């Protein structure tokens, strides 16, 4: 027993000393740590460098404030007019998120219908492709005429812009099951709804999320484009106002506010994806 203990102690004691004494390993560890810091620091340095170039260009060429603002003026505007910016972000957020929910829900429902009733897909998919080929800026006035000046046309535009990628991806996902998996379900005498619930739906989830990540950004684009046409509030309306007033600092601040929301929305969907889809390895 004592012998055994002594042996374990000796074995346990040897490797750490050997590692400490190994200069090659120490160098390797240092290089790894440096590479980690590089990955974190370099993007920040890149952003700082671009901000400096922006500031220097405005200062050196004496660019007038109604043409382009310098970065510190934009930062100041964001701080001073934060209440105006947030008051206008609020309706855009509601429109984008409502449109996102509506467009994706309809797309998922229609994808399920397409997969189970092939003739519906054959009859209507070409029309969907045709409608999708109309540019958003052309669809927007039509919807404003149809739905008036409130939030409804903006929500509709955001929904339409989300609809197509989700429909296409969801159909692909629901059909991405192997013939052998279908044979397995047949041997188990699974019913149609069981095949849908246990096989098709889980298979489609990763496909759905790649569409939702696209939709998160495009729904904000849809809401802003909708606000360009006949709206008093929202990020889109504020962009138009600032442009006509030659208030470049407010214009830039508005754009940054809208983008920040877009990025946060995207990150929220990606976080949800990582929580829901644990069986597919995600890139870091």
């Amino acid at each position, binding site marked *: 027993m004592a012998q055994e203990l002594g042996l374990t102690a000796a074995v346990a004691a040897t490797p750490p000393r050997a590692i400490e004494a190994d200069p090659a390993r120490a160098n390797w560890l240092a290089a790894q740590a440096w590479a980690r810091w590089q990955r974190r620091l370099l993007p920040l340095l890149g952003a700082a460098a671009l901000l400096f170039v922006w500031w220097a260009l405005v200062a050196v060429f004496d660019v007038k404030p109604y043409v382009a603002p310098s970065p510190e003026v934009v930062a100041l505007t964001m701080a001073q007019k934060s209440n105006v910016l947030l008051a206008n972000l609020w309706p855009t957020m509601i429109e984008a998120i409502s449109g996102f929910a509506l467009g994706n829900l309809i797309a998922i429902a229609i994808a399920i219908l397409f997969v189970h009733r092939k003739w519906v897909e054959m009859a209507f998919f070409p029309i969907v492709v045709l409608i999708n080929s109309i540019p958003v800026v052309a669809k927007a006035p039509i919807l404003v005429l149809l739905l008036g000046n409130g939030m409804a046309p903006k929500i509709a535009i955001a929904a339409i812009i989300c609809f197509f990628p989700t429909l296409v991806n969801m159909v692909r996902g629901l059909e991405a099951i192997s013939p052998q*998996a279908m*044979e397995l379900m*047949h*041997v*188990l*005498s699974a019913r149609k709804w069981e095949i849908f619930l246990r*096989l098709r739906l*889980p298979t489609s*989830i990763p496909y759905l999320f790649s569409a939702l990540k696209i939709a998160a950004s495009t729904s904000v684009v849809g809401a802003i484009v909708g606000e360009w046409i006949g709206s008093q509030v929202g990020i889109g309306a504020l962009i138009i106002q600032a442009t006509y007033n030659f208030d470049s600092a407010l214009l830039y601040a508005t754009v940054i506010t809208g983008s920040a929301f877009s990025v946060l929305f995207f990150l929220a969907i990606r976080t949800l994806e990582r929580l829901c889809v644990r069986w597919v390895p995600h890139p870091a």
Partner: protein
Amino acid sequence: MSAALLSEPADLADAPAIELRGVTVRFMSPQREVVALEDISFTVQPGSFLTLLGPSGCGKSTLLRAVADIIAPSNGSVRVLGHAPADARRRRDIGFVFQDSTLLAWRSAIDNVRLPLQVGGGARSTVRRSPEDLLALVGLSGWEHAMPHELSGGMRQRVAIARALLGDPRILLMDEPFGALDEITRDRLNDELLHVWRETGTTILFVTHSIHEAAYLGQQVLMLSSHPGRVREIVPIDLPEPRHLSIRDTAEFGALAGRLRAILETC
């Protein structure tokens, strides 16, 4: 005679596990009609282990799918435990193992084994072996909660076997289950399959294109010729039971494998 053939056997326990009579399967390919199987007749006794050997494209997999009610024969009849294949399938008498493990990627090993309980009305009755027991039977205790992408190819195939065994099916159909595995893993799984067969007493119909696998596992080897698939010969394998891998080094096994190879060359 014909009346006896048409009527249901009175005691189904006496019925052969699998019985094919004059089974022909035709497919329509875009250009022409393809005869995958022609006039196949053979009988498999309950509890036996039959391997199906033949060149690729001879219809081995088609034959297995006709027994499992995945495809219907164009002519002839298939009986499983004296019943139509569809009845046997609904009674959960058939377990099927595919070449690809076909595990659901979002389910852990144990949840994949449980799948037969959750679809198609669940198991026939209370299962004799629990999902946990079945994973232990295929040597995977301790891996219950591993996800498929965390398992090796051989381990995934073991999970697929455990899943096929849930509900104690009396027939196990295996379609080249170890075809995609390396030789070392394949040998080990061959031994474990023989162990499972002895433990469960299930009837096994096993498709392979490996001569050694066919001879080592089967009590009989059914050899199919190709284009169209026909029964070429049924070779009894008179090797002592229980078998171990070392049997493959004996002259007796070598002679058997040589004989199978000679028949295969004329297929």
